[in-house]
């Protein structure tokens, strides 16, 4: 790739940083150049996020339909499964499964609620809702 071909398609880096590419400059020497993003990459990153967002949306609907507790929504939103959540909270996997059922959080101890809230970096009040 030549230096003048370095893509500057804004997108997922959100202006927080830029990608570094190795490219040929006009004298045929290898140099580095920065890119704000590249469309093909934006497309496949968006594809990965669509999958995550769909799971979150599905979880939200389950909570609204009284098929699951808000814990499911927060777990999906944090890209976690039961195993990973158990690792972050030190709460037993079977216990988590109970807490995931509709109304399950009502039976959770204060300590468990705090562990979940810490893992998701939210308050206990936020944990109990899907807003």
């Amino acid at each position, binding site marked *: *790739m030549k230096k003048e071909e370095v893509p500057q398609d804004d997108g*997922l880096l959100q202006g927080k940083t830029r990608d570094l*590419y190795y490219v040929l400059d006009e004298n045929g*020497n290898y140099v580095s150049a920065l890119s704000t993003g590249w469309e093909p*990459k934006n497309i496949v990153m968006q594809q990965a996020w669509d999958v995550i967002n769909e799971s979150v949306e599905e979880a939200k609907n389950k909570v609204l339909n009284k098929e699951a507790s808000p814990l499911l929504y927060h777990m999906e939103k944090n890209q976690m499964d039961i195993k*990973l959540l158990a690792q972050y909270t030190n709460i037993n996997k079977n216990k988590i499964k109970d807490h995931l059922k509709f109304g399950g959080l009502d039976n959770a101890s204060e300590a468990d609620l705090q562990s979940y809230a810490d893992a998701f970096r939210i308050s206990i009040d936020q944990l109990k809702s899907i807003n």
Partner: protein
Amino acid sequence: MTDIKFEHKQSAHCENGVTANLFTFHGLKISEPLVFGIGSGLFFAHMPFMKLTGIPVTGFRPMPGIIFQRAAKKLGIKMKVKTYKNPKQAMADLDANLAKGIPTGCVVGVFHLTYFPEPYRFHFNAHNLVVFKKENDLYYISDPVMENITTLTYKDFERVRFAKGTAEPKGKMYWPISVPKEVNLKKAIIKGIRKTCYDMTEIPLPFFGAKGIHYLAKQMLKWPKKMEERKALQYLGQVVRMQEEIGTGGAGFRFMYAAFLFECYTIFQDERFKQFSMEMTQIGDLWREFAIEASRLVKNRSRSGSDWESVSNLLHNIADKEQDTFERLYKLAKEWDKKL
């Protein structure tokens, strides 16, 4: 507390970048492409028997940590590496290092890495950074993929050092304890090239090297036949994500390798390295063409001009070119090996 003057140099990839920045701090000035080439960082693997979030693993580099280990070994640098069970101990030991003025490499998870762009925050636990200063509750971080120095609070730093899930970092930290005054750069380079050429052309398994690219090209044609199109496209998207994710320098590290070969040309004063650098650049351009076609397919599904057959053919062509280039580069490396 000692104030360390640590030069933050942005790099494409975290592991090479941390290595280059740490070695440079200790007086061995070295570029990212050189670390990458000496550490035999270029690779290809497609392993359908290994899955991450339900998608087969495709890699353009060896396992995390290996490039760094190889580069340090070939250059004769001794490293101290520590991992921990107890987070408080891990933070206390890091503080002690910083108080002594030792910039320290750390492995972290990126999901909770507060300064990272949100769309890149997945549960990936093999990111590398250098911490070089602590002021009150704040750690000063040289993260090679970031343009500028960033900071993390004690709490946020402890969390990412003890991220959970696959390949937990367990507070891993590392730093050079002895760096030789003089290194035999040429010898280290040639050894690095030989290993890469072997990996790309001679591993007797179908999953690796140029053979692995052919293998992926063949497997790919089966995907839309044996699963829903949506899933097949996720498989394809994953290949492009691995190729172009933060840190490859574009085209699955092929441009970084081209930059390395260009540096070899100046070090060895051998025009042939320059020619190989240009060949590698062309191969990188072909990988980008593949990314464009594949992402079109992802975006427009079957309605687009690209189809599975043509995307697969692009890969077969790349595989042939890489096989040929690395075979000839192998010969050049062997020729130089005899002279050194």
